[in-house]
């Protein structure tokens, strides 16, 4: 079981990385959250029956951990001035685009971050609704609002 688990987490660690980067500001906090998520995944692994995709299970546990675990309160961080300007999404400048994307996503509230990350990962509305615990139509309405929010942030 341990071997199987390690391989799965190793293969899907990008998911954990992205969630940590979206929910925490500093590198240190992101690293702590990464460990926390791996620990929670390991604890939940025996109850994973393989009824859902492993990626959606990892997303659910990782998002849940990121949202619930206690965070030290810090002064409010204003991300907008730090967003690199004029970077298009297909200009090959991956690092700059990545920073711009995560900078924008961090401005959303916690459930919005969860919702949009699932959408960006290409989960269906049905899967998103099941992970979030909301209806499909709710997910659609909410994603539309997030789209408008992001439009303003990234314009």
């Amino acid at each position, binding site marked *: 079981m341990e071997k199987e688990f390690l391989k799965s987490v*190793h293969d899907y660690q990008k998911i954990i990385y992205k969630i940590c*980067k979206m929910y925490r500001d500093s590198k240190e906090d992101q690293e702590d959250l990464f460990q926390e998520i791996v620990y929670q995944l390991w604890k939940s692994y025996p109850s994973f029956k393989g009824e859902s995709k492993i990626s959606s299970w990892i997303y659910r546990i990782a998002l*849940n951990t990121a949202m619930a675990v206690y965070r030290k309160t810090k002064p409010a961080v204003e991300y907008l001035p730090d967003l690199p300007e004029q970077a298009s*999404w297909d200009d090959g400048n*991956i690092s700059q685009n990545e920073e711009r994307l995560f900078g924008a996503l961090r401005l959303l509230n916690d459930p919005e971050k969860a919702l949009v990350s699932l959408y*960006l990962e290409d989960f269906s509305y049905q899967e998103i609704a099941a992970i979030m615990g909301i209806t499909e139509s709710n997910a659609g309405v909410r994603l539309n609002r997030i789209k408008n929010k992001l*439009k303003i942030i*990234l314009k």
Partner: protein
Amino acid sequence: MELDDLKPGWQNAGGTSKTEAEILKMTKITHHPSVKKIRTKLIIETIMLAFFLTVYYDWFDGDKKPVYANVLLVCSLLAYILNDVIGYISLLQPIRGSNLKTSVEKYLAGIKRLSVLSIFFSFVYGVCFIVFFTSVINFNREKKFILLGIMVLLVQATLWSYRIWRRWIKALKQQVSDMEFDEG
């Protein structure tokens, strides 16, 4: 810009790759950063309180104090330690439902319960501690003022603890409220 335009950026994002050995290390509770801090605090507190429990009777003349003062001190101290241990175990379990909404709601309910019990048992322990040490004192005006000062400190410590819990509960409540998606 469409939301779909962000998909390649999201799907290609990724950091330094961790090895399976590093991941394995993270599954062990002893390497867990936040848990380490809570556990260290819990262990130190428990050792100190257990030590106090074994020596207080001789060192602080338990035999000269009324039985009720001894009973109150021991019971409140044991309840405090027990609550600490239950709280520690409870904090290790943020995953409490098959979806995010249910899980966060249940976690919030658990944290609320834990905060009430923690504040209550800390306060009761403080009061019983004072009762023990003052149970054989004949109070004059000065001593009454000192006692009042100690009570004020205890209330302040309780308020400080309440504020820390409230900050966390407020953040979780906000998440639950943000989860209540309306379609209007």
